[in-house]
């Protein structure tokens, strides 16, 4: 299965980051979103990130120009579907994604591989909305996708070995590192990393130490950012949503139980850096 052209469905934060990496990997990219202004914003973001890469001497100017040339924008789903690989980066709503994949399935060439950038939904369930569950795979990029080196390749229950191999070859051409994961709730990273936040919140709730002390402790053993500084960066709403989704996906296994502190802060609008107030104040 040779991949030359790639469609990215959704031009938001994840979508434009993936489009950036894909274009730099030498693929022809079609960036799709529902409205022209959304696609345009995504394209502008890619241009900004490319310019930044050149300014920081991470990219040479010619490579950045070539990447720009390779990206095309569209608001026609049927046109976007005419690619060898279609990566969906739409909002994390199962019904929306299933509908999108159903429509894409009707328009895309039979040989095209479908991929979802979901971080929390089942690949197998999404694949069941199409006639190509064997050519359906998860490609979970991490935010910011234009910089983060990891991609989780998620093998659905019906995904073929050829599809996994094609996905691995694609990730390698983006100069990113792939890890292979079974289709289970939260995959690898979002699951195994849960206690970093969950236990830190419990310690805070127990009054074991304050947030700054706990952050300093974790940083003292090599974490780049302590759990509270990191939650402030990610956004408490985003982190709380992931925690709840993992907790529910595992049928309320207490290992993944969210903490009342999270909900209280989210409902108070203390979401972290983006609102000026989280575990720390940024005003």
């Amino acid at each position: 299965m040779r991949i030359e052209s790639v469609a990215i469905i959704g031009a938001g934060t994840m979508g434009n980051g993936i489009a950036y990496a894909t274009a730099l990997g030498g693929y022809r990219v079609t960036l799709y979103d529902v409205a022209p202004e959304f696609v345009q914003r995504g394209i502008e973001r890619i241009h900004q990130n490319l310019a930044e890469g050149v300014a920081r001497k991470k990219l040479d100017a010619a490579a950045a120009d070539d990447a720009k040339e390779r990206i095309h924008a569209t608001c026609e789903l049927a046109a976007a579907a005419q690619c060898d690989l279609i990566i969906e980066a739409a909002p994390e709503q199962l019904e929306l994604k299933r509908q999108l994949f159903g429509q894409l399935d009707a328009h895309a060439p039979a040989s095209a591989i479908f991929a979802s950038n979901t971080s929390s939904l089942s690949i197998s369930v999404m694949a069941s909305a199409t006639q190509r569950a064997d050519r359906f795979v998860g490609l979970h990029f991490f935010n910011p996708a234009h910089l983060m080196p990891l991609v989780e390749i998620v093998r659905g229950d019906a995904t073929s070995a050829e599809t996994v191999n094609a996905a691995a070859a694609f990730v390698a051409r983006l100069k990113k590192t792939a890890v292979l994961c079974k289709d289970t709730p939260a995959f690898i990273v979002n699951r195994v990393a849960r206690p970093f936040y969950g236990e830190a919140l419990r310690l805070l709730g127990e009054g074991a130490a304050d947030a700054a002390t706990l952050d300093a402790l974790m940083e003292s053993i090599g974490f780049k950012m302590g759990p509270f500084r990191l939650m402030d960066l990610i956004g408490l709403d985003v982190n709380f949503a992931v925690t709840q989704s993992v907790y529910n996906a595992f049928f309320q296994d207490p290992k993944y139980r969210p903490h009342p502190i999270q909900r209280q802060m989210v409902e108070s609008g203390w979401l972290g850096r983006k609102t000026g107030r989280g575990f720390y104040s940024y005003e």
Partner: protein
Amino acid sequence: MKILLVGVNALSEPLAAMCERGGHAVARWETEKFLAARTIPPHEIFIEVETTALEKKRAVLERAAEDALLFLCALNASVTVAASWVQNPARVVGFGALPPLAANGTIELARGLQTAEPSWERAQNFWRALGQNVVAVADSAGLARARIVCCIINEAFSALQEKIASAHDIDVALKLGVNYPQGPFAWGDLIGLDTVLGVMEGLYAEWRDDRYRPAPLLRHYALARQVPVRS
């Protein structure tokens, strides 16, 4: 000062070296030998690092000299609970650290309900004199860092047991996906899986909460000893 250090884990050797550099005379004992010895050498400070089985920890602590300042490794039991096993619990202070232990690193200290103020002050001065940054945390099994890190390692073992990915890929994913200084399996090897299991069992005993149940595969590897983690 004469220090008696009992127990062998990934912390014992660097701890002994750190104390010696600080000008102390350190006698190191392996747990079984210490428990079997007819007489134990005189000491002013007793450091316990038996982080596997609680009954061994208890037997070790019961043999400490009655007037020595007693540091117990609070990775697998809370200070108050472990101090309740010894004579004169007022001189007991808990500490927590994870390998690699840096010369100018950070040590967590916790006082039990029984810990007396002079012991607490002496304890802080002792570690500061060894170049450690002292951070006081509340008394609970595992203290802060080991609790968080060992829960991550435990979760990695539960993911491996379900064969969601290889051990290698899980390590790579956590290093590259969330910038962890080490992958959970590499870190588990460094800490010692018997100690990681000890931390989980300590947390489980303390909270009686299923969230701390040790992954069966973690227990298997801890008991199998020296068997490299396979996928």
